[in-house]
């Protein structure tokens, strides 16, 4: 700790902080454009100039506070006449070549340059020469560019090399002719590219899909969470009337830091397309609109006419925990144990520590090595990939990959694609063993793709054995991690929405469906199934998009999407967060839990709750792990179990196309544009 003085007030701050950080802690505002906490320091905007005074006296000229560290006894002046002059000068130079087209700029109202010109600017310009004009660049379907507005802070350049890791954006030319661009106007390929829109302090990089559609002050802001992947990123949904206009990240150091993926940022137009807004029932092979009353009556009739062991239910990837719990209760009441949440065929089961990300995301910072098994981590959790990228900058940090040899933006040691390599490592018959045994806190990341198939349990047991053998699990470290890619999976698993003992798993349900052995199938937002229409089985689909599930359904219940209802989700770490309603359900659609409640009521089943609060209280009482208000604690280490030699176990790729992993994403034209863009680039 060092003692410093900021504007004649005493503060004690941590050693090694930049002056600008110390000022932030002290609550003194220092204007800045290029400085960003999560990026390296560039020091090129000169906006954060302050005066410093040490034992040798006042500095001869103002210093850039982002590029200078605090030291004992340093006196900092942020509001002196000279500082004010310097800042006004810097701003006047920045504005010299800035077009001042705020009325037609999308950044207007949330622009750093606008705000800081008001707060720190000179008020008028003495420049009467010709302004510089720069060609706008093509950066793909997400980022709109207006490069005349660029002030060359290079935040986007640093982001692309340090956080997204693709090194796609750079600055060509120099001085007056410097331009920010991608390589010859190629589209940005990173899954995190949208973050440069937030980073850009001016309107040079703005969102293309959101262009000219709203001003920030007319939006309703809802702080909620994202369900496009299983990380549970914290987001803010901005809506206007009944429409979601855009999605922005929220700071959460434990999960997403400041970033979100492009899928999260741009899925929102999918909420307006392909929506199911009223109940439908199949008449003569065609789905026709019907009323809630007749839909519920039909469902009741079909359920009561089916044998309970021939009724089964599957839950999808976007469903909240409450409605899965409600469906489980309904199924139990009907007398069926045939329900499963693992629609991709994953065989995870057992206590939570066997299928959660035990080290937590922050644990990655403490780790000193990593072994990724059967996971295409860049597609399954791009933000996790970015954390690993940060760690991989350290030469000592070794990353081994078994399974898929894809571009992860960092260098790794590819050990092979066969799961049996894990067995080899276990008997120390692999080159990577030397690296592994030198690690004290390594991470093991098991993807869902590694846990599909008959031998999955056995494979997981081998991995746990391996975890104990090397330091993945020891007395004060639990680095055994399972990575999910479906937002609702961890939550559904923790309330036991999978058959234990009796009951059919997904694979059996599907084969029974195909072999006409099923009477009734209830799909709760389950769209990732490859099923053909089968007239022998009555299919009820409850969901918000006319996607794969609705196509094979005989009866469709319109439900709210995740941002149109309150609901709990557990992320892959086991952290429970609440998704908050930002807009209302479309048309006649109802909230998910309510539909199941109404169905139970129709069937005269006492399901034990009549509103969301009662349901949630019951749920938390039965499964305390779901309590969103509990302190987030690490879980115990998974127990060793018996295992055999692997028998034809194979890794399976669970994500083919990153941009089309769920029904909302598939309905989004933003994301499909992006998807096609990649295809076109590949063909070229």
């Amino acid at each position, binding site marked *: 700790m060092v003692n410093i003085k900021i504007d004649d007030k005493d503060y004690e701050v941590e050693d090694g902080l930049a002056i600008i950080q110390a000022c932030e802690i002290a609550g003194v505002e220092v204007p800045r454009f290029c400085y960003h906490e999560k990026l390296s320091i560039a020091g090129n905007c000169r906006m954060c100039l302050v005066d410093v005074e040490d034992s040798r006296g006042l500095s001869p000229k103002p210093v850039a506070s982002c590029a200078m560290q605090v030291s004992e006894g340093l006196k900092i002046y942020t509001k002196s006449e000279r500082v004010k002059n310097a800042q006004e000068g810097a701003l006047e130079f920045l504005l010299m070549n800035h077009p001042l087209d705020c009325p037609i700029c999308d950044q207007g109202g949330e622009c750093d340059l606008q705000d800081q010109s008001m707060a720190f600017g000179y008020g008028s310009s003495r420049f009467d020469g010709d302004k510089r004009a720069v060609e706008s660049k093509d950066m793909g379907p997400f980022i709109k560019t207006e490069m005349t507005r660029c002030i060359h802070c290079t935040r986007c350049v640093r982001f692309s*090399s340090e956080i997204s890791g*693709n*090194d*796609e*954006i*750079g*600055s*060509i*030319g*120099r*001085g*007056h*002719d410097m*331009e920010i*661009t*991608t*390589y*010859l106007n190629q589209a940005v390929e990173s899954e995190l590219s949208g973050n440069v829109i937030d980073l850009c302090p001016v309107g040079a990089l703005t969102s293309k899909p959101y262009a000219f559609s709203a001003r920030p002050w007319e939006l309703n802001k809802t702080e909620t969470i994202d369900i496009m992947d299983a990380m549970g990123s914290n987001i803010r949904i901005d809506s206007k009337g009944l429409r979601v206009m855009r999605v922005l990240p929220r700071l959460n150091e434990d999960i997403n830091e400041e970033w979100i993926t492009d899928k999260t940022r741009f899925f929102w137009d999918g909420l307006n397309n392909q929506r199911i807004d009223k109940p439908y029932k199949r008449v003569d092979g065609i789905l026709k609109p019907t009323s809630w009353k007749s839909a519920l009556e039909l469902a009741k009739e079909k359920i009561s006419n089916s044998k309970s062991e021939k009724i089964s239910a599957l839950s999808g990837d976007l469903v909240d925990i409450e409605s899965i719990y409600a469906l489980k209760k309904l199924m139990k009441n009907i007398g069926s144990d045939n329900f499963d949440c693992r629609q991709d065929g994953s065989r995870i089961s057992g206590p939570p520590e066997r299928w959660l990300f035990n080290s937590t995301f922050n644990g990655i910072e403490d780790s000193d090595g990593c072994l990724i098994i059967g996971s295409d981590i860049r597609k399954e959790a791009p933000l996790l990939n970015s954390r690993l990228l940060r760690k991989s900058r350290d*030469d000592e940090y070794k990353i081994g990959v078994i399974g898929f040899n894809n571009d992860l933006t960092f260098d790794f040691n590819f050990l092979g694609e066969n799961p049996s390599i894990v067995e080899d490592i276990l008997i120390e018959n692999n080159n990577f063993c030397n690296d592994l045994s030198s690690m004290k806190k390594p991470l093991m990341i098991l993807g869902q793709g590694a846990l599909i198939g008959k031998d999955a349990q056995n494979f997981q047991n081998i991995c746990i054995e391996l975890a104990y053998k090397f330091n993945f699990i020891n007395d004060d470290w639990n680095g055994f991690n399972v990575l999910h890619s479906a937002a609702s999976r961890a939550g559904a698993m923790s309330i036991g929405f999978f058959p234990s003992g009796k009951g059919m798993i997904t694979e059996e349900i599907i084969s029974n469906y195909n072999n006409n052995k099923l009477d009734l199938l209830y799909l709760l937002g389950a769209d990732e199934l490859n099923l053909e229409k089968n007239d022998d089985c009555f299919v009820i689909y409850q969901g918000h998009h006319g996607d794969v599930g609705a196509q094979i359904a005989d009866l469709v219940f319109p439900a709210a999407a995740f941002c149109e209802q309150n609901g709990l989700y557990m992320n892959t770490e086991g952290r429970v967060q609440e998704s908050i309603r930002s807009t209302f359900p479309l048309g006649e659609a109802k909230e998910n839990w309510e539909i199941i409640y109404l169905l139970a009521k129709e069937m005269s089943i006492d399901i034990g709750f009549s509103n969301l609060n009662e349901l949630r209280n019951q749920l938390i009482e039965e499964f305390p792990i779901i309590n969103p208000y509990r302190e987030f604690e690490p879980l115990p280490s998974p127990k060793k179990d018996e295992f055999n030699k692997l028998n034809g176990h194979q890794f399976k790729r669970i994500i083919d196309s990153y941009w089309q992993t769920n029904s909302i994403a598939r309905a989004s034209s933003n994301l499909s544009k992006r998807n096609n863009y990649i295809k076109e680039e590949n063909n070229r």
Partner: protein
Amino acid sequence: MTVRRLADNQDINFKFDNHDLKFLNSLLENYPKDKKQSAVVPSLFYAQRKAGGWLPEKAILAVSDFLDMPKIRVLEIATFYSMFNLQPSGDHFVQVCGTTPCWLRGAENIKKACKDYIGQEREVSKDGLCWIEVECLGACVNAPMIQINDDYYEDLDYESTVKILKDIKNKKNIIKGSQIGRKSSEPLERD
């Protein structure tokens, strides 16, 4: 200076052959093993020489391949330094120094000679001549001066510049260095 872009006409074959790679690998020995990209400037310079005095896109890609660097980072370097030509520069690339000492000693006349004899700045003439104005080339004591490919021609005036350019065109031998017969930069005898 104007905005520097890659040339429109990229119709040139470019590939590092074994001989080139041998030289480039010897360059790498000057730098730490894990800091390969330090060799980007000498590699680009070598590529420019190989391609005939300018950098086509293929050369930039070849260097980025050789040094395992992202393409955009190599492009940044190539566009940053004005000594990398992104446009074809002819067989005889004339760089006219226009910085203060040369300018005071009559660089404007040299530029006029080039304009009269070669044509517009940056345009390659039929004879394979091309000229541009550059910043100080560091031979101020012999100002004004020009650089043609690798050699300096000093103590020029309008006539001597035209003579040099004519001699190049006619494939005659020309004297390098001072054009008034002094040795390096020895003092001039005043009349």
